[in-house]
């Protein structure tokens, strides 16, 4: 399983995906800047994407994996939707900034109990 000698397998990608995912989660949980939270979301989506590509890759699995072309297709959809999500999130952030003069998400607590 050493990637330097053995062929790279799915699990290697899964590890990378997991790290990206976790980093994204931490980013979302730690950043007070709305744009930082947004970046965390991008990281999370990217981590998921890595998994999709890995599952569908013809290289990483000798048997082409059960997802075959579905993997990249879903990854594509994720990318596209991430772009859409980023646009909307940016718009929301700007709106928030217009109304509150800050991008600190901790200040967006008007709906607290």
């Amino acid at each position, binding site marked *: 399983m*050493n*990637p*330097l*000698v053995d*062929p*790279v*397998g*799915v*699990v290697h*990608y899964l*590890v*990378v995906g*997991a*790290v*990206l*995912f*976790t*980093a*994204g*989660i*931490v980013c979302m*949980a*730690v*950043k*007070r*800047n709305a*744009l*930082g939270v947004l*970046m965390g979301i*991008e*990281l999370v989506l990217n981590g998921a*994407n*890595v998994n999709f*590509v*890995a599952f569908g*890759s013809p*290289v*990483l699995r*000798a048997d082409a994996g059960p997802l*075959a*072309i579905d993997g*990249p297709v879903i*990854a*594509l*959809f994720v*990318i*596209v*939707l*991430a*772009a*859409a*999500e*980023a*646009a909307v999130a*940016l*718009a929301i*952030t*700007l709106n928030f900034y*217009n109304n509150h003069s800050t*991008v600190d998400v901790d200040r967006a607590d008007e709906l607290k109990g």
Partner: protein
Amino acid sequence: MMPSTLLGPASLLGPTSLLGFVAGGGTACGFAMVPLAAVNWHGLFFLAFAVVACVMAVAVVLADNVVRMAFYLVLSLGATAGLFFLAGAEFVGAMQLMIYVGGTLVLLVFGVMLTAQAPFVSIKTATGDRVLAGIVAASLLAVLLQAAFSVHAWREPGRFPGDTGGVVEPMSTPLGMALVGVRVDDPSPGLAQENGGGNGDGSGGAAAGGRSGYLLPFEIVSVHLLVVLVGAAYLARAKRRRSSRELSEAAR
């Protein structure tokens, strides 16, 4: 080899140290034990991209300055695109570069600039929050890694792409066909026969049988994008503000 017993302590140390383990451990044993001729270049590039992606992702977490965060994110996403290329998903990789890194992040940076006021460039987070998030994230990472290693089929090594510099199947054509509803990668015998007869040029009726294509999701995503475009433009639209003079006149 990555012994799963190491996962326990590693998860306690948080994502950074684990990443260090993955990268450092892998390289160390690779170079120490493997003769140079046996080095798997595909794997080496994988390691390089993976390390960049992970380190930069962690750097995003650790950075305070929002523009630097964006910069690290670009590097992370770019390295991920490299991973996609290595996995044979060239089209996805190119798309990742184009849309994600190119489009999304420019948008982000735009946002950063619009809000790049001195007080907001770096908003500090309480240390307690960081520690708490680190612990929770470590447990999440542990769970994810456990899941990744738990399925035997995923642990099987992949194929050597050969000594051909990584020439793999072109994926864009079947991908494009799948997006318009034709699954060329999935031959079902009945379908081919059905298509052969009847139709004049056989262009119709290919969507039936076997795995379905992605025409419908593709269309939905198209419409979704349009809606998002309109919605985003609406949310961030120009707003009319009445000047104080108008307001005072209205009050009178």
